[in-house]
């Protein structure tokens, strides 16, 4: 198991290196001088600009700048935002909580929904419930998150006036009323994220269960007279959940990138809206840090999925072919 884990971890290092090189190259090859705005500032002389350039290490050759950037990043030094002059790390820390709350709640809701719907529709494939649920999933799958968000605002904020369309960051949860307000303002962003993720996950849960439902061991269990409930919960579900769990790990980066759009629609002050605002204001250090963090998250979740898969299914780590039997 340890060698399997090590091998998996080692494989993800070159991936991360390639990604960091791609990212660095894109940003450095982009036209435009990072110090261009100082050129228009009469208070900054040409010499000062040159000194700044040296101080920032911009006079060094590209490979050296790359190595410096990576080593600084690994030590948690992500530089300073151009627009607010604050360390990027502080900016991120301020907003991480909100994003984690929205994303976590969204994923939680989506897991419960997709498991329940997936199992129920896989039990009777082709039934009315199954067709309704799969059609429902397909239509959410075909609705981009920003469209769902706009529809929700139209229905729940504009027409019904139930929920606020804008997320207030200054809200303090000190009493039950505060908690209710937090839940009310989180309801739509969480629902948008959850519905999109559910569409993907539910279809996957359903097909994983259907894959297992016709296996020999299920028929054997039935022949031994085991009750249907236990066949489903102890036999089918346990096997079907192995690929589902890895998909859940792989879905984490997707829901984080989905949060970029959701946070933008509902004006949620999280990491995603920080990224969009940083792009609008050409705040390169912030954009680079967040993009690279997303990349690390993807690689990390891939690794977790691989390890989980090896843990749950010994055939994988022994290198045996995984067949459906």
């Amino acid at each position, binding site marked *: 198991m340890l060698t399997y884990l090590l091998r998996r971890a080692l494989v993800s290092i070159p991936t991360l290196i*390639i990604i960091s090189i791609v990212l660095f190259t894109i940003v450095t090859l982009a036209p435009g001088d990072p110090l261009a705005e100082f050129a228009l500032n009469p208070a900054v002389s040409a010499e000062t600009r040159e000194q700044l350039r040296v101080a920032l290490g911009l006079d060094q050759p590209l490979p050296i700048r790359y190595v410096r950037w990576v080593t600084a990043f690994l030590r948690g030094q992500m530089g300073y935002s151009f627009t607010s002059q604050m360390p990027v790390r502080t900016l991120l820390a301020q907003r991480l909580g909100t994003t984690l709350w929205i994303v976590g709640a969204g994923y939680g809701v989506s897991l419960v929904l997709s498991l329940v719907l997936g199992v129920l529709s896989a039990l009777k494939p*082709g039934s009315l419930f199954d067709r309704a649920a799969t059609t429902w999933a397909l239509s959410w799958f*075909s609705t981009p998150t*920003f*469209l769902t968000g706009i529809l929700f605002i139209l229905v729940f904020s504009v027409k019904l006036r139930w929920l606020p369309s804008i997320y207030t960051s200054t809200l303090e949860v000190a009493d039950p009323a505060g908690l209710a307000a937090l839940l009310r303002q989180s309801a739509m962003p969480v629902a948008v994220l959850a519905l999109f993720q559910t569409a993907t996950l539910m279809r996957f849960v359903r097909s994983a269960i259907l894959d297992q439902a016709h296996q020999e061991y299920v028929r054997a269990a039935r022949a031994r007279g085991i009750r249907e409930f236990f066949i489903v919960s102890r036999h089918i579900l346990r096997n079907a959940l192995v690929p589902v769990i890895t998909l859940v790990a792989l879905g984490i980066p997707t829901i984080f*990138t989905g949060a970029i759009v959701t946070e933008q629609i509902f004006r949620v002050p999280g990491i995603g809206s920080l990224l969009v605002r940083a*792009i609008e204001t050409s705040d390169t250090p912030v954009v680079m840090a967040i*993009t690279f963090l997303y*990349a690390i998250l993807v690689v990390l979740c891939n690794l977790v999925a691989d390890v989980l898969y090896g843990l749950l299914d010994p055939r994988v780590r022994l290198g045996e072919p995984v067949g459906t039997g």
Partner: protein
Amino acid sequence: MRPHARSQRPPGPRQLPLPLVSTTLFLFIVLSTLVGPLVVAHPPGTIDFSQATRPPGWEHPFGTNDLGQDMLARVLVGGRVSIGVGLGAMVISTVLGTAVGVVAGFAGGLPDALLMRLADAFLALPHLPLLLLTMMLFRDPATSLFGPEYGPFALVTLVIGGLSWMTVARLVRATALTVREMEFVVAARALGASPIRLIRVHVLPHVLSPVIVAATLSVSSAIVMESTLSFLGLGFPPDTPTWGRLLYHARDFLDIAPHMALFPGLALFLTVLSLTSMGDRLQATLEPRRVPNHRPTKVVEHS
């Protein structure tokens, strides 16, 4: 792997390779975006403040926006851009993916290992943030290079296509690996067929059906990616009315003019829905043997 898991039932003998309703719908949308702007009563750019934010009616079937521009014309013209990006990105990703896949599967050894590592790295890239980043950095140079009309279009299409070739590459490589060892290919090689001929005559026909399925689905995901970019205000410039851009603009008028969001949203939804169900059905008919893979590798990034 298939996060959008396909229908489990094998298609019956009478099932069409394409679902009738969705295909008709998609063709109808494409045709109306092509012909529509030529025949609508109001050009998409005409500003008339006396007609601002009119609800749908005889004069303006989809209503007007805050500048009094006809929404029907704008949705139709926007559809041209959105579908154009989708198709363009699909062509790029399919050609690129097929080339990479054929080379990797046919050459084997080191080139194969390197190319597949590259595909893995591309799959691990966070696509939306990266798209946003490239749009921010290269929008102005692209505009000066190809002009204000085609610059953003070329950039968006290229970047989306360049970020979505991996699925096709993996599919083609897997097929090429199998086909390479088949007896008729070994025989052809023994007869002295060149690698180019082997690829053209034997490998490419074999990879056709998985590639068609992947290509259909990639059109819809490219359309979604483009509208997401435009919705974040980072895709096309404001005067190019793509569906995402129209929705981005409509967000500020939801309480007084909900039709500004409803019609572009509906067009986008119907297009993506019809493409997805076309892909689903194609998969079921062209590749009934392909059992759902147990091992998820990467979720299709899709926002």
